[in-house]
């Protein structure tokens, strides 16, 4: 094991990055593990343990492998585990392989679509968008699978809000929510429909998973508050325009479009490591001299 790791890591100082207990991603893992368990135990979800295994393995293994090969580091794979659990819940397919395919696409985007050392697209969003667009015969967005359980709702909203607050990204979620509701009001006014109908996505748990776990990823959002607020509002605005035009899964495409503008948001922001980093602790590779 030691010689294998050294061969992979080469001359780069062999270190393993451990998350500290203060790392907010532990909250995400707790939240999403609960949702994944709910999905597995609820027949209406139509999920299978093999799909969970495919999702987690694809994300974690691909991320770990590419980190070793290209960045010469070993990481406890929280950054891959969190979206892999979310993808298991959000990807809706009767097959197993799409869960692996979405994960592979997401991790490839994370490692190869990078500017100034940072990935541009949120991997979960990238995986879902490419899956929906290119594997549409086998992949759908599992937004209709959640029931009405108030406990599940409370679980998702409370822990989601907590992790977003701890990551310093609650302003994005609030900005998006406000813009979404304003867009719903405008759409209902213009169409003559009910506001409750236009705003009904906010009654679904997936709305909060999206707001707290996809669009607020610290790695793919601006670092300054004003820009974050504009970022969230812009996603909400594009979302509203797409919904007005009847585009199914509008929020996913809205975030994808706005993430294409992310480098412009980051212009002038401090380069790494001044911007957001997860709370990690580094240590020598076990057995290294």
């Amino acid at each position, binding site marked *: 094991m030691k010689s294998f790791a050294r061969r992979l890591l080469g001359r780069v100082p062999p270190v393993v990055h451990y998350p500290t207990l203060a790392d907010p991603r532990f909250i995400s893992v707790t939240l999403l593990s609960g949702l994944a368990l709910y999905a597995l135990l*609820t*027949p*209406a*979800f*139509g999920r299978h343990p093999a799909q969970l295994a495919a999702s987690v393995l694809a994300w974690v293994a691909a991320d770990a492998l590419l980190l070793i090969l290209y960045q010469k580091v070993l990481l406890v794979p929280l950054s891959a585990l969190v979206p892999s659990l979310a993808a298991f819940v959000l990807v*809706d*397919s*009767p097959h197993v392989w799409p869960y692996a395919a979405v994960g592979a696409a997401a991790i490839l985007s994370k490692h190869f*679509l990078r*500017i*100034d050392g940072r990935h*541009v*697209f949120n991997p979960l969003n990238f995986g879902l*968008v*490419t899956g*929906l*667009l*290119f594997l*549409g*015969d*086998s*992949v*759908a967005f599992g*937004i*209709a*699978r*959640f*029931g*009405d359980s108030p406990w599940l709702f409370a679980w998702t909203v409370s822990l989601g809000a907590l992790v977003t607050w701890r990551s310093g990204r609650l302003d994005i979620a609030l900005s998006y929510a406000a813009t979404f509701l304003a867009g719903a009001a405008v759409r209902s006014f213009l*169409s003559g*429909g*009910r506001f*409750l*109908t236009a705003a*009904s*996505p906010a*009654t*679904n748990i*997936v709305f909060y998973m999206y707001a707290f776990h996809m669009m607020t990823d610290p790695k793919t959002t601006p670092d300054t508050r004003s820009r974050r607020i504009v970022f969230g509002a812009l996603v909400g605005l594009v979302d509203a325009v797409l*919904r007005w035009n*009847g*585009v*199914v899964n509008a929020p996913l*495409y809205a975030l*994808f*479009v706005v*993430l*294409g*503008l*992310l*480098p*412009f948001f*980051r*212009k002038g922001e401090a380069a790494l490591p001044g911007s957001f980093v997860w709370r990690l602790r580094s240590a020598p590779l076990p057995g290294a001299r």
Partner: protein
Amino acid sequence: MKPAPRYAALAVAAAVLGLGFWTRGRLASRHGAPPAAAGGQGFRLTEAASASGLGYTPGRFAPHPSLANLAPRLGSLGVSVAVVDFDGDGWQDVFVSDPARGGRNRLFRNRRDGTFVDAAASAGLATAAGEAGAMRALFFDSRNAGRQDLLLTTSSCAVFFANRGDGTFRDETARSGLRHCGVSYAANVLDFDGDGRLDVVIADYFKPVDLARPSDYEFMPDSAVAARNGGPIVVYRNMGDGVFRPVAGNLGIVSRGWTLAVGAYDLRGTGRTDLYFATDFNSDQVYLNEGGGRFRNASRLVEDKYSRNGMSAEIADVDNDGRAAVYVTNIHAPPYALGTNMLWKWMPGGLFADAAGDLGIAECGWSWGAKFLDLDNDGLQDLVVTNGYISADPNKDYWFESGLMGSAAGRVMRDARNWPPMGRASLAGRQKKCVFRNEGWRFTDVADKTGWADDRSDGRGLAAIDHLNNGSLSLVEANEGQPLRFYRNDGGGSWVGFKLVGRRSNRDAFGARVQVRLKDKTLSREVQPANGFMAQSDGRLHFGLGREPEILEAVVRWPSGTEQRLEGLAPGRYHLVEEPEDPAPAR
């Protein structure tokens, strides 16, 4: 940061979205590709509704104006078709319900020359539903009198018309006790208590609501995948002399609603009729008949599955192994809905296994009616599936709005007033039908080669009929608000048929099984003409014999338990088989 990389990210986003939507568009147009040239099959289906006197366009059910936002959707179901020999002349006739409120049903009498003429008015069935919309039609001999009575569900309350035996019917709704109120698309009959009389199962879709004069608007489903707020399933016991009463305890059947079809068949080879309820917005329900009027809920065996829009429950012995399988249609409309049709087969060990994917019959659009029948008389039952939901303006679709409500919280979804106006939008319309030819180990879709390629109707019920009594099974397709289609089968081949008449069992012989033994295989069919979706087929049993026209014997297992062996049967004709009066129990 240099400008170029910043623009590169935007370019990647634009490229992915552009390429993705372009690819999806290509995929969609591929699904609607024009048909290939015809020819090369063992049968040929010719659309001949007008030429055969079956030219008829049923109306659509129109709800109250306050439900105008959902009018296309609420009017998207209702038409049904039933094949019946209503006048007892030995030739199969066709009844078609008219879902329009105050509409006129059709009863096409077989003129024995390949054509039909409408006799609904003279029979007294044209306006059987009164001011309501007519829906599910179910013919059966309620008194074991040799006459086919009609149970007709409507948009309001069911009606029951007794057959006088002279080609006319009289309204006996009040006397019969079958004034079942509710919107029901599903009904079937079985003799659950073995008393020789046919009992009735009616399953409602919506919870009790008058769509023509609603006082409560919270009748839509409260979940897209786990709704439990639909209407009841009610079992009526036949008390004799055309009188029915609800069964106390309802055989233990749990009502969750949203039932679209009731399938009846002996699924396990026990000699008893089990029940399968194809259910929308939830998993299906299965009740296994334990005998003595007791049923066991086995729904958990088909619960843990992806597809949640059961539409049809068509049942047959697909692979001639003596065991039946339930074909349940679903919604397959990628990228919006990825459900698939299923073929549930009871396996040794007490499990249902789905074989639709392996057999190549899992995908056929937004499927509705399905029918197993041997189109080419090769001894293997083929499968025809009709589909298409709402075909209106081809440039507008309702997928966004449908998805919006399908993902809303239950309290929002169930209120009909919250649903966005559908207007002239389409939803899974203009779909290509499927004609799956049974190749023995797999099915192949030959719709393009059989004369069914151009059909883009909003298909609902599919009924098989041998209208010429010549062993070629044709099909009648009822389409919602669109012309009836009649696919005449001009094929040939060797065959044999049976018309069963029960004596100790119910006279229609519902639940009777016939096994035809050939040199190296045994074919099995059960008298269950009212399975499928909104359709009733020819009640006689038909067997294609393939290349082995020599029939060694046929064995009839009657619902009473009597087993009857028939030898020296000649192919190429229907045999009238009457149940022996003297019992010879085989169970």
